[in-house]
């Protein structure tokens, strides 16, 4: 699509916010259009990175599962970790990547709960790796307009 979606959305959203919104009455509709313009700015920021950040995250979670599987003591979870580590994203549509991401992050919750109560060094190391990945995941999703 040309002009590129991020540039088109940014330009239109700023026009809405600066020129159109102040001219709208009543205030409720002014607020609604302002919200829509803000969502366009968010979409503009997310558009280009949407697939790559999901793919990067999915692959990182698979690496964590592959590293963690040998030290998981619960047999069912151990098998699941090994199986998920072998999956891959063949469909690169954002919806498909998001679906994989949900499955992988749900499994991450189970792995995290499994290792966080253990004192052995291997579990501590996996726990640390998970926290680092969780912090990284918020950087991938961060929007410039967000309060924090």
């Amino acid at each position: 699509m040309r002009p590129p979606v991020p540039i088109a959305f940014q330009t239109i959203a700023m026009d809405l916010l600066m020129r159109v919104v102040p001219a709208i009455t009543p205030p409720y509709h002014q607020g609604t259009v302002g919200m829509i313009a803000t969502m366009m700015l968010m979409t503009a920021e997310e558009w280009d990175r949407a697939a790559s950040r999901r793919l990067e995250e999915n692959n990182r979670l698979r690496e964590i599962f592959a590293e963690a599987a040998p030290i998981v003591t619960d047999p069912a979870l151990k098998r699941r970790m090994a199986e998920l580590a072998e999956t891959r994203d063949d469909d690169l549509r954002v919806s498909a990547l998001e679906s994989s991401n949900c499955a992988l992050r749900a499994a991450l919750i189970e792995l995290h709960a499994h290792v966080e109560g253990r004192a052995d060094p291997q579990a501590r190391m996996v726990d640390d790796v998970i926290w680092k990945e969780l912090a990284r995941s918020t950087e991938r999703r961060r929007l410039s307009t967000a309060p924090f």
Partner: protein
Amino acid sequence: MASLEESLVSYIALRMPAAEDIRVDQLEQISGGASRQTYRFRLSYSENGEARERRLILRRDPAGSLIDTDRRIEFAAYKAFHGTDVPVPEVLWLEDDPRHLGSPFFISVEMTGFQTSPTRILMEPYAAHHEKIAEQKWSILGRITRHDPRRLGLVGTMEWVDPDKCWKRELDYWEGVLDSDELIPQPIIRAAIRWMRRNPPPPAQKVCVVHGDFRTGNFLYDEQGRIHGILDWEMAHLGDPLEDLGWSLSRVWCWAQDDRRGGLVSRERAVAIWEHASGLRADPAALHWWELFASVKGQGIWVSSAHAWETAENKDPILILSAWSLMNSQDRAALELMGHLR
């Protein structure tokens, strides 16, 4: 089918039998959150031959809501605090019967000429008064804790909770919201919940009225930096006073994108104001627990707003905007509190 103005006239006539020539005009919807549809209007009538006029606010339940709240509790909180040192608008009528206006509602007096915006407060002329606004904001929150909920007549309308059960009741509730409404897994908030259950806070120093959404954006302020009213009591309940303090300090209300809480003052300054006004101590470990709880509750709200938009009739864009803009900030706030934000 009667217009909303006509329906309001019919309803007010029932409530004010001595009034004549009742008229409703200048009705307009205003922003009031997604949990209620909020309208302002002018009521004109005559009584004993004298013409009168009032500016009123209608808060009506929508088809789907950001938060499942009880309008009876919200109404009771307004009524209880009106006329005290906790400024709130006067409420007039509560109506559960949907026949009158299509859904339950309540009507209050409008406090006119003030701002509520959490972003406008960052600009002049309001920016010059941040210390003054903060002093009032956290002092009012402290004063809320000094009011005995029994004397306010709120015990019964609001469910009682013992001091040692406050944390568990709230955490159970908001974890339940996540369980029922989350559309995508929440590994950070789930880890926070597990930590919180392993490390519960001490019992509440006292059981108080908890506003439930005490933050910049939910009070009326003017250009001289005076606060005139605390709004949006829809999540009010009885509980630990540190719950409101923790919520008010949340990083997600740092709209100036810096460390000032509520866009106003430092965390330390806010806590000091609250301690002075409440006469209570904000034990650092206990407050830390309640600040982390604020992230669980906040994420519960953003998750349920996304869920409501996708599954219910309410297609208010604020449901999307709040989910898109705050879910990741809420995760980052939780990470910071758990010492894992790098």
